[in-house]
């Protein structure tokens, strides 16, 4: 595979070195929200959204589930901070780092590529920047984070990462059939 940077329409990268924590709690409780904000330094995400400062992000997964993504180096410290900030609250915090894989699609036509994989509306109005949608990619469960107008991050279970990677490659390739534009596919 090529090591060059993505050019042309869509680039595909697998993201490594991330840790994921799942927090189950009543996410409408003020004490839980403020504790999470204090422990992570990020704003609490609205319904169906995620917040991020680049290195760290919080994602709204369901009314009682929050996903916390941090660099692997910060994982232990984040767990400690969260447990300290949420002491006395009814929560369950679990390190899910090895359960999931992340991919990043980048380029101006990612919405079109995504539309071939998912059943929801991938236009600006249906999937605004900041959105987090749990859905399915072809046949497997996953989640899509719209991080900016030209990047989307896709999460799936690690057990199906090769399937999703192949799927993305194929969908991008189909999009380019007949076009002489360079695509770089990089699996770090």
């Amino acid at each position, binding site marked *: 595979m090529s090591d060059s940077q993505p050019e042309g329409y869509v680039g595909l990268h697998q993201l490594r070195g991330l840790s994921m924590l799942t927090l189950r709690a009543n996410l409408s409780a003020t004490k839980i929200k403020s504790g999470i904000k204090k422990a992570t330094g990020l704003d609490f995400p609205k*319904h*169906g959204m995620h917040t991020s400062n680049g290195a760290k992000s919080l994602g709204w*997964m*369901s*009314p009682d*589930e929050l996903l916390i993504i941090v660099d692997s180096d910060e994982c232990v410290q984040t767990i400690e901070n969260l447990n300290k900030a949420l002491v006395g609250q009814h929560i369950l915090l679990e390190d899910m780092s090895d359960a999931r894989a992340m991919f990043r699609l980048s380029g101006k036509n990612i919405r079109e590529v995504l539309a071939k994989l998912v*059943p*929801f*509306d991938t236009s600006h109005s249906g999937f605004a920047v900041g959105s987090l*949608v*749990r*859905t*399915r990619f072809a046949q497997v*469960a996953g989640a899509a984070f719209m991080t900016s107008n030209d990047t989307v991050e896709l999460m799936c279970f690690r057990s199906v990462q090769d399937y999703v990677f192949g799927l993305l490659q194929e969908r991008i390739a189909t999009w380019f059939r007949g076009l002489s534009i360079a695509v770089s596919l990089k699996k770090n």
Partner: protein
Amino acid sequence: MLVLNCPYCGLDKDETELSAGGEAHLKRFGPGSSDEDFEGYLFERTNPKGLHFERWRCAFGCGKWFHAARCTATLEVFGTYKAQTLEPPKVIKDVITTKRPGWSWRNFS
């Protein structure tokens, strides 16, 4: 294609992202109940042509169970609502009354 709005994530979910859970508003009869009640709880289901109340799970989304009121003949959806209730909320009943005057389903009307 059936599209239902999940009342927990607030998103329109396509049929392929949901899993069907059969009839809604069943009352459980467990140990100590009469044989007729237990049999009814296990096996007796209505299969109407028209208005029906069903359970659906946002399987590929937030994973929550919710209820939907829809017409099995036309696939018209009257509304979806959270499952933490013993009967359809008034707003759903009002919509059905507007569209299907004189409706009844089990002991709701």
